[in-house]
């Protein structure tokens, strides 16, 4: 990718345009010279033709063998022709060949005329006289033809020079226009894209996303802007917290607090507050949908005694153990919570008395099997469980909990480690 300043590019572009123009100017000058030379050659050829024609007329107008014939006219014209031949303009090799031909013809012409004029023909026959006159005409004709050829070539040269120059000018202009278009397009594209990228970064900045600008086209001018912007952006991103991040932090903290407020710190199960919240919900739902709802109230037997014997830390461990056992034996939809010191409540939605007793049995059985070890002893605890199902008599949650509590007391009174159900007549 090209890296440089935009102004450099513009200078380079202007320079190339100037170069093309100089090239154009040079070619025009060269063509002018070539044309001028061709015109000079054509002029020279025409003069040759004229001189030769004059000589021809001279031969035809008079009898060159007549005694009164004056050779001076011929000699003047002949000398002029020779002088003209010696003043030929600069010629190409091809034209030089023709020039050589004319020279040679002219020499022969001179020779023939000398034969005619030097009175050497006094013994000669009429035939040779006629023949020499014909030779004279032939030589003149040859010179004239060569002059015409010279002129024709000069004309061709003029035509070709003009044609080539026109072609050259057209192609240079075509290339210039193409370069101009590409240059202009590329420049505006760089500026437009870079501006868009800067604008986009500003927008992002506005909405709190501190992104660095990455230019797709490098240019010194925009690079400096981008450098300044990116430096500013970095500082801003260090000191500013976005709203979204803040919301996220708050939500996270709130969630933790909520969890803390609903959880029993020791057993990590729901506390009394959470119990009432959940139980009220399940109560209302059961009333509304006429579903069954059963509560279990579990109380650890002789907990105080265990505490005293093995210490509070073991008591705490025991409570956690009970919670684990309960957690394993209940369904997904059931809800276990710590009700008080060593009392727990399990909410069993969509569950009748029978189901409640089954759950209670499972818990008691599991607890009997899994005892806790302490100081090399196996400590097994039991639970007194009260079971009560929601009935029409229950007007609120408190009444239901109360009845469950009553059932638990019955279990205590009837000898502990047992399950008692509060039958309808005994309901409050």
């Amino acid at each position: 990718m090209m890296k440089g300043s935009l102004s450099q590019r513009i200078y380079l572009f202007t320079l190339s345009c100037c170069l093309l123009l100089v090239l154009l100017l040079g070619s025009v000058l060269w063509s002018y010279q070539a044309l001028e030379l061709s015109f000079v050659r054509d002029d020279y050829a025409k003069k040759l033709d004229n001189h030769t024609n004059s000589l021809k007329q001279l031969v035809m107008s008079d009898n060159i063998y007549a005694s009164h014939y004056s050779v001076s006219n011929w000699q003047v014209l002949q000398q002029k022709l020779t002088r003209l031949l010696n003043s030929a303009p600069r010629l190409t090799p091809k034209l030089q060949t023709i020039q050589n031909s004319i020279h040679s013809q002219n020499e022969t012409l001179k020779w023939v005329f000398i034969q005619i004029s030097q009175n050497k023909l006094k013994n000669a026959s009429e035939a040779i006289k006629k023949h020499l006159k014909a030779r004279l005409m032939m030589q003149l004709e040859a010179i004239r033809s060569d002059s015409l050829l010279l002129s024709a070539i000069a004309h061709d040269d003029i035509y070709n020079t003009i044609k080539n120059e026109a072609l050259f000018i057209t192609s240079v202009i075509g290339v210039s226009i193409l370069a101009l278009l590409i240059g202009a397009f590329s420049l505006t594209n760089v500026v437009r894209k870079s501006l868009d990228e800067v604008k986009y970064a500003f927008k992002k900045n506005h909405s709190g996303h501190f992104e660095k600008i990455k230019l797709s086209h490098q240019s010194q001018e925009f690079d400096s802007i981008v450098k300044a912007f990116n430096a500013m952006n970095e500082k801003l991103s260090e000191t500013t917290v976005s709203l979204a991040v803040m919301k996220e932090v708050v939500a996270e903290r709130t969630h933790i607090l909520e969890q803390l407020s609903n959880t029993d710190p020791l057993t990590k199960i729901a506390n009394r507050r959470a119990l009432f919240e959940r139980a009220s919900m399940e109560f209302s739902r059961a009333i509304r949908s006429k579903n069954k709802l059963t509560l279990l109230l579990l109380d650890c037997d002789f907990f105080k005694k265990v505490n005293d014997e093995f210490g509070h830390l073991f008591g705490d461990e025991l409570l956690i153990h009970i919670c684990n056992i309960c957690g394993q034996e209940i369904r997904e939809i059931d809800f276990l919570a710590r009700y008080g010191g060593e009392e727990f409540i399990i909410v069993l939605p969509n569950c009748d008395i029978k189901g409640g007793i089954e759950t209670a049995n499972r818990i008691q059985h599991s607890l009997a099997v899994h005892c806790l070890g302490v100081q090399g002893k196996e400590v097994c605890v039991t639970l007194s469980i009260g079971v009560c199902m929601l009935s029409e008599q229950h007007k609120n949650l408190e009444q239901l909990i109360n009845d469950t509590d009553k059932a638990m007391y019955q279990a205590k009174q009837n000898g502990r480690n047992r399950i008692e159900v509060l039958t309808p007549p005994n309901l409050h």
Partner: protein
Amino acid sequence: MNKKILSFSVLLFAIFFGAVELYFYAQSLWQPQKYVVTIAVSKTPLSTPFYVAKAIGSFDDTCVSVEFDEVIGGQRAFAKVMRGEVDFGTSSDSVIAFQSLAHKAFVTHAVFVQSDNDVKFFSRPKANVTSAADLKGKRVGVTKGTASEYFLSTLLALEGLTTDDVKLQYFKPEELIDGFIYNEIDAFIPWEPYAFQSIKLLGDQVKIHNTKNVNTLSFNLISQTADNLLVNKAKCILEGLSTAIDYIASHPNESKKIVIKELQLSPDLIDWVWPDYIFKLGLNQSLILSIKSQAIWAVSTKMTSHTEVPNAEHYIDSRAMLKVSPGAVNIPL
């Protein structure tokens, strides 16, 4: 953006080269049919344009593929053309003039070289010949019906003599020297390269007379009376010759080397004749006048048995030349 420009340029180049390729392909399809033509070329440096054309391949781009049949003298080339053994031949204007008297069915397509000093006049020093006038009663060797015979007759005529005043003996061009060596003749009129060879061979046993400008000899491309096909072939030959003649004008040294190699001549010979030669294509009124005047001369000096001088224009066919180089054609219609 730059990638776009790059791909655009690549595409442009691809299109351009594709077009060029297509052009050459189309051109190869349109390449005119190649005709094989045989040309009876006179084995003299005058035929330089033919040898150069072949050497630099200037016939390659034309419609003809040229084969040379090398002969000695334009007269034999002419005979071969008339017998139909070759398609074209090279002959001097003198041969054309003599043959026009016999009303042969041939045409001249172009002049490709001229020289004002090709035919030369040699005599035995002992014979004391200082000018043509001294030839009276002497034995003179010439080649019948060629520039050699014409040259002698004009030389004699200028001194008020005719060929009847000398003992004329006819030789083939390459046998003139032998005639001189065997003392069959006192003087002879050879052309190049035999003139140069005579000087080399005979040294001061031969005297050379300055006859520059006495006769301007031209060499011409001739064929039998041409139909359109033959004119087309002539056109192609002339195109090749035109290229070769331009090459000779711009590269004289290279051209000399080609002729030296092709004709196996000594460089001295080429340097000897070269200044007198002017290679250029043309078809002018001067050729008609030359043929006509030589024919009239031949009749009036009884060099030929024919008495009627034909119309020289009938032996000129300008169609091919008009297609190749109209500027070099100068014949009034």
